[in-house]
């Protein structure tokens, strides 16, 4: 388990890239609706960082090719992405964002 940051430092609409203590970079998102999600940071299509992406509801848009991913499942909703990105468990406890790194396949 990794403490990412204080939730106050990740206001709704913001995202952060986690590189320490993880096998591959993870993007943690705080949506405008107040939900917190975590995905593998690297787009499944080509080299781009999803933590740089634009959030719309529970979707994030790849900053390079505009592929959308459902942050709940990691599944792409449109071309050009063909494959899902892995999701990770994330929670907010005592004002801190906690990342529970998983090695499983996307839900």
């Amino acid at each position, binding site marked *: 388990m990794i403490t990412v940051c204080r939730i106050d430092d990740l206001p709704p609409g913001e995202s952060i890239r986690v590189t320490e203590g993880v096998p591959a970079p993870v993007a943690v998102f705080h949506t405008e609706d107040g939900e917190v999600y975590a995905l593998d940071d690297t787009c499944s299509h080509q080299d781009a960082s999803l*933590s*740089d992406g634009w959030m719309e509801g529970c979707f994030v848009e790849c900053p390079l090719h*505009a592929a959308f991913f459902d942050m709940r499942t990691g599944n792409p909703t449109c*071309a050009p992405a063909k494959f899902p990105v892995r999701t990770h468990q994330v929670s907010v406890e005592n004002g801190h964002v906690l990342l529970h790194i998983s090695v499983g396949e996307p839900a």
Partner: protein
Amino acid sequence: MRSVTVVGASLAGLSAVRALRAEGFEGDITVVGKELHLPYDRPPLSKEFLKGNLDAEALALSEPYEYEDLEANWLLGESAVRLDPGARTVTLAGGQELQSDGVVIATGAAPRTLPAADGLAGVHTLRTLDDALALRAELLDGMPRVVVIGAGFIGAEVASTAHRLGLHVTVVEALDVPLERQLGRDMGLLAASLHTDHGVDLVCGTGVTGFAGEGRVAGVHLADGRTLPADVVVIGVGVRPATDWLVDSGVELDDGVVCDAGCATSVPGVVAVGDIARCPNPFTGRHARIEHWSNANEQSRTAIRTLLTGVSAQPPATAPYFWSDQYGVRIQLAGHVPAGARPRIVEGDVDSRSFAAVYEIAGEPVAAVAMNQPKLFNRLRRKLTPALAAVAS
């Protein structure tokens, strides 16, 4: 409409097939592709693929399960040579005739070459997967001296990749400032500095007059009298739309296929998409071809609605967008940079090659450019004002 022929099997052609099925079209779809490959992604051809870090399979734009769903008939390795507008019959080089109710023109563009290079080994253009394989084989064979003719995006990306392979690279550009038409003077100069930052020689304002070497290139003759020694030459001086097969078809041609905003051509039942389509753009107000990946990916939705309804569909007024990766810098541009406009830096600074900037008309942002600032760039991109509205305000 019960049958559609899509001529061209790259991103625009595949997007057209996807759009047809997404719009509920259940008829026959035949796709004609000049190359033997199923649709693949071209942007990596000048970058990671050229460097040898990706294999061809990684470039595939789709997967077997999607091809099964799409239920299209792919005629690969076939070239269209003629279109009969009355019956919408596409004739292939082998003589086969494909008659259908609708035709999608998606034959794209082909690289311009220099006549003096005809038949000379070691001189390359880069457009297709096979082009990239041929160039890669030569770049990875020993330590060839590389000359890139043209400092546009393809030329700059090839130069960057060759430099990363440890090769000596010289870039020759006929204009005084590379990419000035696309990026404006300030950003063009900055793009030029990316080459020199990394020790790549950049020769600007000098044309190429010919080549040294018999059978195989040995050097590039410049207008200033110099000859640059070269083992491998890459010509990146732009493209011309692949319209040869449409001459005398009745489809109006003028720097591509002339279309209305909905991608309708001058012939009923025939639409055009991608690099070849010259449509009035509702965002930029320009009637110009757009050679961007994102355009090829998105424009088909409009074109297919036009084709299926017979009424020109309204395209979304979003800013044309593209990116380029060179020397570890990701350049992103949205909108059309007005001639003579100066960028206003919103954040970051140009010296660190990390910034985002906007171009404004009457105080309204009409274009955004960034280096290594994808997050901010995408925010700025969403706030852009269509140039027509900015002019009117």
